[in-house]
């Protein structure tokens, strides 16, 4: 669990869209004094778009230059399984002459990314959503994040879960996430419980 202070700009999925990301930076960030504004990225930097490498290198460069101000959370696409199924692995091998060591280095970077963030003690942030195994935010600290995310369990849920639709949200607690074929859909009540127990105002997620 990473603690982040306000002011903070929170950014969701980028998915290899380098030009959109640069446009976002020009619109949102350049008018502010970046060293005094934190930025939290909620994961899914790679796959789908054609410039995942450039997105990662840009964000890593930012992280190296502003290590305290930039936080890169892990998304469900920052994994071997997803990058092999979608486009990132292919992109790396195509652009770097089939060099698997380049792909492996990116995976090492993904595995070092934290899973969740606490913004100002008010907002709980993660890529996917909550888990039946999440009671207190200290539970997140027990996760070994330096692994390929499993297809079930706490780490999987934080990266993969989704909220229920509006109709089901009031009646469901956790139900199978059939669209994703893993993890859960969560209702309003478990969200309320987690917010109350940990004194948060809200959950901020992407996915």
């Amino acid at each position, binding site marked *: 669990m990473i603690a982040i202070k306000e002011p903070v700009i929170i950014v969701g999925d980028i998915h290899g869209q380098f030009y959109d990301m640069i446009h976002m930076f020009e619109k949102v960030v350049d008018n502010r004094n970046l060293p005094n504004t934190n930025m939290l990225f909620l994961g899914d930097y790679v796959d789908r778009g054609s410039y995942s*490498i*450039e997105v990662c290198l840009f964000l890593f460069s930012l992280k190296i230059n502003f*290590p*305290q101000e930039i936080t890169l959370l892990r998304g469900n696409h920052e994994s071997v399984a997803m990058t092999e199924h979608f486009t990132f692995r292919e992109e790396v091998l195509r652009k770097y002459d089939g060099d698997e060591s380049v792909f492996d280095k990116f995976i090492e970077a993904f595995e070092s990314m934290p899973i969740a963030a*606490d913004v100002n003690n008010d907002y709980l942030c993660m890529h996917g959503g909550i888990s039946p195994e999440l009671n207190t935010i*200290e539970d997140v600290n027990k996760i070994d994040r330096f692994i390929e995310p499993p297809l079930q369990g706490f780490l999987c849920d934080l990266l993969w879960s989704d909220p229920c639709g509006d109709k089901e949200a009031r009646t469901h607690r956790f139900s199978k996430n059939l669209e994703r074929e893993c993890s859960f859909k969560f209702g309003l009540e478990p969200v309320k419980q987690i917010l109350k127990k940990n004194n948060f105002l809200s959950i901020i997620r992407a996915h």
Partner: protein
Amino acid sequence: MDILRKHLLREGHLNKPEMMEIVQKAVEIMSKWQNFSRQMKIGIDEKLINGGIEIN
């Protein structure tokens, strides 16, 4: 940014060793993040929690 722009415009490719160095540095920084317990915030320097700096 110039290197990335050239790479995007196919004016040249990002030097692989340089790129690996960027990723490796990011790995080293991000790997340092220790698990963070909210109780640990009590009494720690403001700078330590700003941006989620490493907490041992």
